[in-house]
């Protein structure tokens, strides 16, 4: 379970997020929000203006409509002021006469038009504006995630699962767009509305306001009780979904093997299992969220019910309102249909806000979990970093040296031990050895895909760790045994690392790699699109494209990690001759098994169990009777045909 343990621990490490951690996670979004702060402030200001404007208009309309027209009760001074009404007809009367009530209808319509225009128009505009702002924030976060993942060393990528990465970037970082709403905008808005409601209702009757405020106590209590189980449930749901995504991805990636081994049913069975468990987790978490909402509404509804009934009774006896002198202006000096509607409307709005706030809190638990998972990636320090005083790599001229280099991917599984090696420009160094002897790892260290545990690698006497990684890698070209192509055209694949390269340069590089012939035979030549994983090409063809990609980089150091393994002998010879002609003055490292290739090297380093067993030219090493290298070579040649054996000396 070695590899597994790392990731699993990562997933289950923080089942219990406490409030501090949640707050911390929320705070962590700040760097991504900050660039959008100006827009957010504008957004809030416009929202507040619209909210106040519409609340005031609504109050005026309620008095007109419910109090005046429907209830026939007199209006307040405010209406006289705004609409220029005759106070003797509309205010200082016991009941409004029918004609006065009829005439008020136009005022309602007149006032509703700006209300609808502002609320609908402004609301829609604001929504689009917020989508735009939040997408920008989300984009920053996604890109930063990709950056971080790309910068992780191979040790991390050896254990992490690709599907998990996708899931994090997609589902989890999207939570950022909600987080600002959840922790900032909406609590602000909802608490504002609630307090506004309490203040207004207090003016009608302080007892109502007390009940309204008391309703928050059980709701806050519910929020507290539910938070932790909700977070746990959401975390499980997300992890299971992530596992399912990984499973699909891996299955499709390895579909050839799945078919060849007839394990479709097996893959499907596990898929079924994972899918069910993912749904089960979703069911649990979402049901819990619903229960929270329902309980909160129960407390809420009770308060509405009590206050509404009290207001109805007061209206029945036409009791006077508490702050009658203030409310007089609106026509709400005594309890009647108008004041009943206005007060219950506010109570409903206030408690509705609290309700929305609690359901938001429930959903915020999910966001906290989502963001927590994002930060698990973001918090990983890239193990390979530029030193603070890293310098650009000077142009290469003297030598590449490995000094006592030791390395292990996982402690206890030593891959390289005490490697010493020197390579100079204009030479080809072959690194030879049995499978698993650490040849490729040596080259990974040269590229600083990982750092040696002890010892150092130096270029022209400078330790790699003091160089800027980008400048180091720009001086090294690499062609690997796993020939990875991208779903793009041949042209783009070749100039992948050198996006500015001209077409001529690409064709030139293809020639060096002996790839030009078959490329020109493709349907669209260099512009042929390869599709994901370039399955249309044979391995040999892919290898040559990979070699061309290394060539075009025109770097002083070239690493060929068994790039010719899939080439037949004839093609390999041509490629090697061509490479050697091109590579004069460069320092070439060659990892290979083929004798034909090894023999062309200036130096052969024979690796065995992570140590340099023997080093020298092919001839010197062959001269050692009983040498490990000699034994290695003789194995390769003894089963060659007897008739050609004589020529092999």
């Amino acid at each position, binding site marked *: 379970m070695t590899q597994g343990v790392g990731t699993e621990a990562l997933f289950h490490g923080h089942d219990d997020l406490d409030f501090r951690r949640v707050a911390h996670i929320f705070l962590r979004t700040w760097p991504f929000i900050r660039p959008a702060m100006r827009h957010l402030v504008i957004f809030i200001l416009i929202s507040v203006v619209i909210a106040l404007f519409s609340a005031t208009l609504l109050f005026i309309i309620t008095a007109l409509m419910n109090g005046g*027209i*429907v*209830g*026939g009760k007199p209006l307040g001074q405010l209406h006289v002021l705004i609409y220029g009404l005759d106070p003797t007809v509309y205010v200082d009367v016991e009941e409004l006469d*029918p004609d006065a009530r*009829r005439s008020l209808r136009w005022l309602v319509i007149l006032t*509703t038009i700006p209300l609808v225009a502002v609320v*609908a128009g402004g609301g*829609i505009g604001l*929504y*689009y504006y917020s*989508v735009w702002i939040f*997408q920008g924030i989300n984009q920053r976060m996604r890109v930063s995630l*990709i*950056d971080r993942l*790309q910068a992780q060393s191979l040790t991390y*990528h*050896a254990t992490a*699962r690709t599907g998990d990465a*996708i899931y994090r970037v*997609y589902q989890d970082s999207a939570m950022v767009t*909600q987080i600002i709403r959840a922790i900032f905008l909406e609590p602000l808005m909802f608490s504002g509305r609630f307090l506004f409601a309490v203040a207004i209702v207090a003016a009608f009757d302080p007892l109502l306001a007390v009940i309204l405020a008391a309703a928050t106590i059980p709701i806050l209590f519910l929020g507290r009780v539910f938070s932790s189980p909700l977070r746990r449930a959401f975390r499980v749901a997300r992890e299971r979904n992530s596992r399912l995504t990984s499973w699909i*991805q891996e*299955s*499709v990636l390895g579909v*050839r*093997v799945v078919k060849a*081994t007839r394990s479709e049913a097996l893959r*499907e069975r596990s898929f079924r299992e994972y899918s069910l468990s993912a*749904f089960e987790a979703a*069911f649990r978490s*979402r049901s819990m969220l619903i229960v929270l*909402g329902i309980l909160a*509404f*129960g407390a809420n*509804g009770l308060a509405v019910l009590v206050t*509404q*009934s009290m207001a*109805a009774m007061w209206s*029945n006896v036409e009791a006077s309102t508490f702050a009658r002198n203030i409310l007089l202006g609106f026509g709400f000096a005594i309890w009647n*249909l108008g004041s009943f509607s206005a007060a219950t409307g506010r109570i*409903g*709005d206030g408690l509705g806000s609290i309700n929305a706030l609690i359901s938001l809190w429930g*959903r915020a638990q*999910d966001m906290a979990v989502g963001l927590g998972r994002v930060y698990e990636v973001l918090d990983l320090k890239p193990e390979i970093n530029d030193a603070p005083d890293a310098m650009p790599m000077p142009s290469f001229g003297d030598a590449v040296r490995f000094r006592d280099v030791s390395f292990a991917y996982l402690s206890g*599984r030593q891959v390289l031990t005490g490697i010493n090696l020197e390579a100079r420009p204009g030479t080809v160094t072959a690194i030879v050895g049995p*499978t698993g002897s650490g040849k490729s790892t040596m080259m990974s260290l040269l590229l600083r895909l990982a750092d040696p545990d002890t010892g150092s690698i130096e270029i022209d006497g400078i330790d790699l760790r003091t160089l800027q990684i980008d400048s180091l*890698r720009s001086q090294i070209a690499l062609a690997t045994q*796993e020939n990875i192509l*991208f779903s793009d055209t041949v042209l783009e694949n070749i100039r992948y690392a050198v996006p500015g390269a001209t077409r001529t340069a690409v064709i030139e590089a293809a020639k060096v790699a002996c790839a030009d012939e078959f490329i020109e035979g493709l349907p669209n030549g260099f512009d042929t699109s390869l599709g*994901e994983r370039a399955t249309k090409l*044979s*391995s040999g063809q892919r290898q040559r494209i990979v070699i061309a*990609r290394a060539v075009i980089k025109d770097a002083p150091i070239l690493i060929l990690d068994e790039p010719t393994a899939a080439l*037949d002998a004839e*093609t*390999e010879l041509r490629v090697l001759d061509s490479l050697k002609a091109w590579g004069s003055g460069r320092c070439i490292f060659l990892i290979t*098994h083929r*004798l034909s290739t090894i023999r062309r090297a200036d130096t052969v380093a024979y690796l065995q169990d992570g140590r340099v067993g023997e080093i020298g030219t092919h001839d010197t090493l062959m001269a050692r009777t009983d040498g490990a290298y000699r034994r290695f070579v003789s194995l390769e040649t003894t089963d*060659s045909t007897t008739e050609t054996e004589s020529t092999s000396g």
Partner: protein
Amino acid sequence: MAEIVSSERITSRETFRLLGRSLRFVWPYRRQIGVKLALTLIGLAIVLFLPWPLKVLIDHVVMGLPVGSSPTPYPPYVSWFVDLLVGLTPFEIVWVIIAISLLGIVLVGAFGGGVARDYASGGLSEGLDTATQSENQANESGSRVSGLLGLFEFRYQLRITHRINHGLRTLLFGRLMAWPLTRYSDASVGDAVYRTMYDTPAISRVCYDILVLPIANLFVIATVIWTTAHSFSAVPTITLVACLAAPMVLLSTFLMTGVTRRRSLASRAAGAVTTATVEEGMSNVVAIQGLGASQRQRTAFAADSQESFKRFRSYIVMVLLLIVVQSLVTVGLVFYVFFDICEAIIVGRMSPGDFTVVYAYFVQLVGNLSGLGSMWFNLQNNVAGMRRVYDVVDAPVDADLQGDDAIERLRRGIELDSVSYRYPDGTHAVREVNLEGKVGEVIAFVGATGAGKSTLAYLLAGFVHPQTGSVRFDDVDTRRMSVDCLRAQVAFVFQEAFLFDDTVENNIRMSAPSSSHDDVVEAARVASALEFIEGLPQGFDTRLGRMGGTLSVGQKQRLAIARGLVGGAPVLVLDEPTASLDPETENAFVGALETGRRDRLLFIIAHRLSTIRRADRIYFMDEGRVVESGSHNELMSLPNGAYRTFVELQLGGAT
């Protein structure tokens, strides 16, 4: 990076066809969906009852009118309740209403005229693009009420949704696994994830939209219209406007569907491209770091992601536009009716409480009408996803290209009779190949890179099917054999080893799940993998990371070979798996294959002479044709033979 696959326009006819298919797919769940519908209707009936107690409160408590003196008649479904209140004092009426409201809170979490009303929605916060919103769709559930009924309805529907989606996901995954290998050259992994995870919920969503939503909406609309006609006949315009609202709301939505649909499609496609870019970047992280191309990868991702967001915004614009049109229609209607209602109240033909009921009912009416109107709109939105799902379901799978005959274990051998194969893009990979292999023989395919050796090997295992000619196992054409039977005969080891994130043992055992631990160990021994496996921390129980984790290519390759050996299949195809083995290991391995040789037909593609020489017969290929065949010695004795030239070149290089 990858290009965005924009599908052509979906016609309305195609939409209906897709809907029909989706309905057939959920047909097995008809009973559950029926229950869901019943629950919804019960909830709605209660919701429609709720404004009436509020009217009672306003008329008889707030306004103090005596019960029974209302100018408008109560509908029959309310009058039984009002009859209970005759003769009660306002104070007593309040208590009755409190009691009934308490019941409402517990049962449906609602009372009053729309202000104090809750509904159950389990939706989680979603991101602002289609992929994350699909996550909520996969968990589609909800109720128009809350309380106990709402909770029950929510949980019930969530279960159905999960069952439907689970079935569909599994179906899709199974189809993906059964696709012929050639389909994969163009299909991308990111796309597969997207279709399975994010596109499938479209179907369950659509089914609720078709089966539950319209009936629920029509129920509300009908009740509202009937009630206004019955109780508010004093003001005929109320009913008239209620009837007029329908065509206006529906028409406004209909006009906008085409554009919306196209934008939704584009938005989803862009999302898939972004996923693919992430996936490619992560899978190839070594290459990208090694090439120093991290910056380039980042730029590509940022661009793809930006594009996906942009398309989503353009989709949002359409949705918002629709909302504007509908609210304008609604406001117009409300104004029109408002005038007449006020008049009726002033002259006493209606009571103030009626105003509350009419208002609540109009809110319900417009809500349900726009629900009905946007039904078409939502269908369009989901058609894109549905089509992407059915694309997968409809694509022929391996089994469609083959029969279902079974043969016993291969006894005699395999014969290829003038077999030709062309890739979908027209490239001829294999031409007119005749070949014979008997059990007990070792056959080698030799030739230059790109000569068609791998394709020929694929033909043996039925990964691809010949356009002309036939492949026969013991005289049975492979096209008549079932996929399972054919693959059971052939163990295939690929050029590039692929390992799953599982234990070493399970990786080896894949083709023969029932094999014992000893079988696995034996296969590992033959593949020269035993030694390094035993050096792993947990030996055979070591879990490999993503794609083999820290194993070297050679180690992975040996595990892949062990995997090919473990089932003891009569035919073993080794497609150059030894290329990354050092000669010592390869020799040991090829030597080890001698055991059990008599019961096995071995095809091997190799470049190493030492390996090729062991073959009983060599087929030398050039440009898809077999140009020479025979034993090594026979072919070497042909003067100027193609094989001989090839070998001499190889040895000349080697020495």
